[in-house]
């Protein structure tokens, strides 16, 4: 019985949906007539170099300690899975090579459920597809292996059949749209309110009558079926309808596999067709329907799944969501639960419980990436929780501050090598925290041998002794520590705040000071050449500083100074008592000297008026300058001399390539090579002048922040060194101009405000310690490594992130947990010496599957990005790209070979890594690493700087921007913060197929937001939010949302404002239309789509699959 029902469903749903897609859309067919995207195609899109069996691409993270330059070849694929040749027809194998296809069915069950499942349907023929379908669920639930087995065998169409996907001009996977007859608007359809379109579509569909079932599937589950796989396709493909009769073709293949019990009798196809129509009509209505039915049909499925599927269908979510959901296969659903829909949320626990039952944690649930289309969760991806006892986890460090790529640490290096995943930490140590316990005590309790600060994860042997959790030495508890200042009690050392908080700050005693705490010193070095005056940045800078001069962090000792330069260096004497600032010009730039020993850096409080005078006159002072040369090197030397007695912060504003005196640079960029697919040259510095100077600065506690405002090439690769080694930061405003780029001006203004007023730590050092047996070997970020684990940070700011790589030196056999501690010693702007300590505790595991279940895909991506930046500088960009691809291949291969007990076709990944290929692809398409798309060298280098320097949260937005539909925001599921209601639209996939002409979409890339207005955008949105009567009236350059007194406007502004509040720097907003110049930038971020030079997500997956099964 059950089987029958099952089959029937499959029959309709399976391959056919896919088949429909391609066949129905004639255009598509023509475009890619017979082309299958199977392996065979591979060569055609070579952007991804194939990984040769002897791994050509060096793994990014060699198992060995770390060899930056000579790439260690990635691992040798272990035993290859011969049984799974991707090649299409190899029926011989016990298991048919259904690389992709099988999964179709499941999706169907999910969304279409109501319709097709109708009893009649059951009766109807279960075409071959069935078998595949049955197969599919199997991965999800480990419980029914046997069952799966049986089903599995049916030799479905060769994987090559997948061809369908690429067809959409833009969209990679099969567009749901594609299935629709209409070429362009297709995407719209799915978006428009859910139910109606379906019907209409079905009608319109060409296949119409002949293929009713197929069409249904197409609609009800348009997205559901991962587009490509058409098991039957090979046969059915061109012929069109006849092919569809999947049954015919299907049955035959099915027949052979003796195993297939579930695959019931190959019923007649026709039946299937007939039956479907009715369901279709029902589909809309029936969807919300009771899951119960399904249960009956699918005995094999754990009830949980069906439940899950049902809620999705419900129309509670807004149309966009619904549309988005439809395509999903069942499996992803647990993740995708829309925030708003209570139903799914409630279900998730049950799902989790279920998976537990079957002894597979949710994170390890097998996901076939080729089939599960919509893996992106609707909300930002949360960090995984380490598998620790409740009490430890409760006090563990916040993942935003301290995060590890593997939340379960492998026991041995060989195990880590086997897992093929990078091991490292990502830190955001100086993050602005809303709540931070501060401890003042004369003695700071630390381990006597390894100097670890006492932390929540140490163990107290008794009242008087504690055991260090990093080196295991037993230490005494000092008398003073016995008293607890919080509870004012004695004898409870384990209740002290130090032992209760994983993040804590100590006020350091004088032993932690080599010299008296330095004052806050700010020196501004300003380019005033002709080019700089043209950009008009001086006005903005001076005005911002004037506005924020009282908000500069500091105390009564704060000092400021100014230097301007073109072909000469100008100093400003601001001594108290002068009636106006004195300019002192030094034209000897070869041997720079300070014209007067003091009063160039003056006390801000005492000389505020003079400083203000100077700031007011500065913009006009150079208005007429014709000097075009820039002696940046000499200016930096002068500034260094000025700051070296005290240390401090140097802010350099530069608008052109320095071309005079020391540190002069030549233009190295060949504009014709911008789009070259060959290797990118000149990613490394042209001179070591800037690096040397930066190291000198670092020694004198001077940090250099570089603001680059230039339309021309400035050789950021060389200039950036000045900030990189002095722990500064780089800000880049390409093509800045005060009139031509108002959005840049606004961003510059807001960034300056943040820059000037944010917290700052001076003369800082950071040390990262880890449990004995682990070792740290490579650091990423801006700093100078003073000794093996000590980072010298002349300045530390709240927007700086760091990453480190680790290896396992000794086996961690007898340990349950390991700990990591980052301690940042700095001088606050108030002259206090403070130590901020973060401690992270993670479990140690001994099995590969545990390691995989603890993988933190975002952290891995962030770390890989850092490693790839290093690689592109030391080796080459293509090397780095290979390495990233190999990272994905390696980890998935390792998973397939070592963890999966049941081998199945398709590209399988554990649920926790399901986004890994997507992120890797996003990295490959990121400005920093992309090839073939015109990218200015400075843009590329800047993107690289940011990847290394930004905290993970912001870096992830750069890598994989968030896309929201904003024309239909509702208060459903909204957050409520400070009495403001903030709607929470779903995060959409980055594919044009998600766009709709009737909508408005907001893309958030971290530093820039694009609001894309569809041509047929609802007039309501235009008038209520943008304040324009119609689409044509949307101004070309619109950078802000008008403050209208309408609910829609308030919602939109609340949402945008909320996004902005989440990050320190102000992202500018561009409202763009179809004709806008910026549309290209917007479209470049559509990562899942295919471009002229890069693979679509689906193609990328196929590429991975091919490499893996090699």
């Amino acid at each position, binding site marked *: 019985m059950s089987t029958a029902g099952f089959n029937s469903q499959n029959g309709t749903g399976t391959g056919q949906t896919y088949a429909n897609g391609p066949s129905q859309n004639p255009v598509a067919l023509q475009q890619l007539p017979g082309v299958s995207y199977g392996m065979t195609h591979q060569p055609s899109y070579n952007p991804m170099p194939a990984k040769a069996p002897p791994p050509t691409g060096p793994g990014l993270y060699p198992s060995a300690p770390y060899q930056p330059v000579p790439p260690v070849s990635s691992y040798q694929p272990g035993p290859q899975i011969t049984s799974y040749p991707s090649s299409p027809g190899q029926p011989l194998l016990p298991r048919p090579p259904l690389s992709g296809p099988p999964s179709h069915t499941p999706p169907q069950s999910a969304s279409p459920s109501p319709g097709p499942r109708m009893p009649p349907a059951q009766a109807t023929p279960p075409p071959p597809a069935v078998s595949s379908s049955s197969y599919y669920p199997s991965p999800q639930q480990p419980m029914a292996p046997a069952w799966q087995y049986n089903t599995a065998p049916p030799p479905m169409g060769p994987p090559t059949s997948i061809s369908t996907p690429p067809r959409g001009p833009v969209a990679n996977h099969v567009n749901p749209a594609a299935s629709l007859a209409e070429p362009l608007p297709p995407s719209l359809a799915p978006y428009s309110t859910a139910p109606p379109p379906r019907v209409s579509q079905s009608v319109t569909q060409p296949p119409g009558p002949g293929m009713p079932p197929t069409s249904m599937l197409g609609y009800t589950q348009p997205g559901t079926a991962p587009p490509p796989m058409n098991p039957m396709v090979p046969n059915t493909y061109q012929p069109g309808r006849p092919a569809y009769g999947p049954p015919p073709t299907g049955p035959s293949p099915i027949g052979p596999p003796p195993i297939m019990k579930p695959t019931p009798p190959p019923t007649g196809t026709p039946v299937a067709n007939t039956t479907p129509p009715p369901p279709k009509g029902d589909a809309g209505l029936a969807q919300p329907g009771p899951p119960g039915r399904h249960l009956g049909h699918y005995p094999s499925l754990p009830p949980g799944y069906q439940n899950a599927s049902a809620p999705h269908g419900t129309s509670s979510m807004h149309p966009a969501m619904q549309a988005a959901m439809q395509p999903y296969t069942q499996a992803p659903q647990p993740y995708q639960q829309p925030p708003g829909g209570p139903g799914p949320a409630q279900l998730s626990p049950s799902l989790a419980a279920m998976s537990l039952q079957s002894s597979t944690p949710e994170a390890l649930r097998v996901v076939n990436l080729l089939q599960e289309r919509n893996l992106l969760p609707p909300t930002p991806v949360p960090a995984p929780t380490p598998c620790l006892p409740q009490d430890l986890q409760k006090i563990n460090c916040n993942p935003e501050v301290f995060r590890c790529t593997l939340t379960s640490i492998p026991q041995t290096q060989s195990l880590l090598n086997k897992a093929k995943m990078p091991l490292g930490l990502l830190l955001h140590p100086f993050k602005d925290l809303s709540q931070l316990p501060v401890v003042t005590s004369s003695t700071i309790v630390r381990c006597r041998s390894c100097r670890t600060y006492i932390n929540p994860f140490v163990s107290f042997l008794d009242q008087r002794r504690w055991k260090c959790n990093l080196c295991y030495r037993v230490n005494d508890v000092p008398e003073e520590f016995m008293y607890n200042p919080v509870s004012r009690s004695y004898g409870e050392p384990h209740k002290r705040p130090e032992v209760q908080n994983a993040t804590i700050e100590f006020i350091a005693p*004088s032993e932690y000071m080599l010299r008296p705490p330095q004052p806050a010193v700010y020196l501004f070095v300003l380019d005033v050449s002709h080019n700089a005056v043209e950009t008009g940045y001086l006005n903005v800078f001076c005005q911002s500083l004037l506005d924020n001069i009282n908000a500069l962090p500091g105390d009564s*000792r704060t000092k400021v100074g100014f230097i301007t330069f073109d072909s000469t260096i100008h100093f400003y004497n601001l001594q108290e008592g002068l009636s106006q600032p004195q300019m002192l010009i030094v034209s000897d730039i070869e041997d720079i000297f300070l014209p007067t020993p003091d009063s160039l850096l003056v006390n801000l409080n005492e000389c505020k008026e003079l400083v203000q005078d100077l700031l007011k006159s500065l913009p006009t002072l150079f208005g007429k300058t014709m000097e075009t040369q820039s002696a940046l090197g000499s200016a930096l030397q002068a500034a260094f001399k000025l700051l070296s007695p005290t240390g401090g912060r140097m802010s350099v504003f530069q608008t052109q390539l320095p071309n005079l005196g020391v540190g002069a640079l030549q233009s190295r960029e060949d504009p014709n090579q911008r789009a070259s697919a060959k290797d990118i040259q000149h990613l490394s510095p042209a001179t070591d002048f800037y690096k040397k100077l930066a190291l000198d600065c670092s020694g004198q506690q001077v940090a250099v922040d570089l603001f680059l405002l230039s339309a021309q090439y400035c050789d950021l690769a060389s200039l950036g060194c000045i900030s990189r080694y002095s722990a500064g930061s780089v800000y880049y405003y390409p093509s800045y101009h005060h009139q031509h780029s108002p959005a840049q001006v606004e961003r510059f203004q807001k960034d300056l405000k943040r820059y000037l007023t944010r917290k700052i730590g001076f003369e800082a050092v950071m040390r990262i310690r880890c449990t004995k047996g682990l070792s740290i070997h490579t650091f990423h970020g801006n700093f100078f490594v003073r000794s093996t684990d000590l980072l010298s940070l002349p300045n530390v700011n709240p927007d700086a992130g760091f990453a480190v790589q680790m290896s396992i030196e000794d086996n961690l056999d007898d340990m349950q947990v390991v700990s990591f501690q980052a301690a940042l010693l700095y001088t606050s702007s108030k002259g206090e010496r403070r130590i901020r300590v973060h401690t992270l505790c993670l479990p140690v595991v001994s099995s590969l599957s545990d390691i995989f279940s603890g993988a933190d895909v975002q952290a891995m991506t962030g770390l890989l990005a850092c490693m790839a930046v290093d690689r592109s500088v030391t080796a080459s960009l293509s090397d780095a790209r290979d390495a990233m691809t190999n990272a994905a291949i390696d980890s998935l291969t390792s998973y397939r070979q070592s963890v999966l007990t049941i081998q199945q076709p398709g590209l399988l990944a554990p649920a926790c890594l399901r986004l890994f290929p997507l992120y890797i692809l996003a990295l490959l398409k990121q400005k920093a690493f992309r090839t073939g798309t015109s990218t200015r060298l400075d843009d590329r280098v800047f993107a690289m700087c940011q990847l290394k320097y930004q905290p993970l949260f912001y870096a992830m937005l750069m890598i994989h921007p968030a896309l929201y539909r904003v024309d239909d925001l509702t208060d459903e599921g909204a957050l409520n913060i400070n009495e403001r209601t903030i709607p929470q639209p779903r995060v959409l996939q980055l594919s044009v197929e998600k766009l709709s002409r009737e909508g408005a979409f907001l893309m958030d890339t971290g530093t820039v937001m694009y609001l894309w207005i569809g041509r047929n955008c609802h007039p309501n949105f235009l008038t209520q939010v943008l304040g324009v009567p119609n689409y044509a009236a949307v101004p070309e350059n619109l950078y802000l949302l008008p403050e209208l007194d309408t609910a829609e406007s308030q919602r939109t502004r609340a949402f945008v404002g909320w996004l902005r509040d989440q990050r320190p720097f102000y992202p500018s907003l561009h409202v763009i239309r179809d004709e806008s110049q910026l549309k290209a930038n917007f479209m470049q971020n559509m990562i899942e789509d295919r471009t002229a030079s890069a693979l679509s997500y689906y193609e990328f997956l196929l590429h991975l699959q091919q490499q893996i099964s090699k």
Partner: protein
Amino acid sequence: MILLTMVARVADGLPLAASIQEDEQSGRDLQQYQSQAKQLCRKLNAQSPDRCTLEAGDMNFHYLIAQGVCYLSLCEASFPKKMAFAYLEDLHNEFYDQYGRRVPTVTRPYSFIEFDTYIQKMKKSYVDSRARRNLGSINTELQDVQRIMVANIEEVLQRGEALSALDTKASNLTSLSKKYRSDAKYLNTRSTYAKVAAVAVFFITLIIYVRFWWL
């Protein structure tokens, strides 16, 4: 030339304020003086003379203790002593005015680091040769600086060390003599036992002899 100025609490040597040296010319060795200054602050106590000059190579430390606060400066040896103490005196007046009452309560090092601003200003006025003349006339009635004790920095720093060395030696001696005493006792007892045992053996032999062969 005043190179370094430090204000510390006498009771525990906690530094309260300091002026960062300008070491453009004088070079790196200031670091060494700085640590000496820190040590010195810790060594000083209520019993120390309240005005003193300590010679350290071609530099002099001058210090002044008043109201539980020590004002210490490092000057070149050629810098007039009178000037130096006038400077410290000035610092004291201002510091006591501003922070005097809060001195005993603070626990954080360099709590009054903002005093640095004033120190720098004073330093400038004293170092400036033009201003020096004026100051000289102002401070004519300055107490007789000749009576101020002069000592060598090494001696002062090592005085404590010598004492502690003596202390350790004495305690070593004590423990050694204790050990000797117990050893001697032990030996005594042992020899006593040996004697007793010898006598006992003799008598036993005698008895046995008498018992078996005599009779």
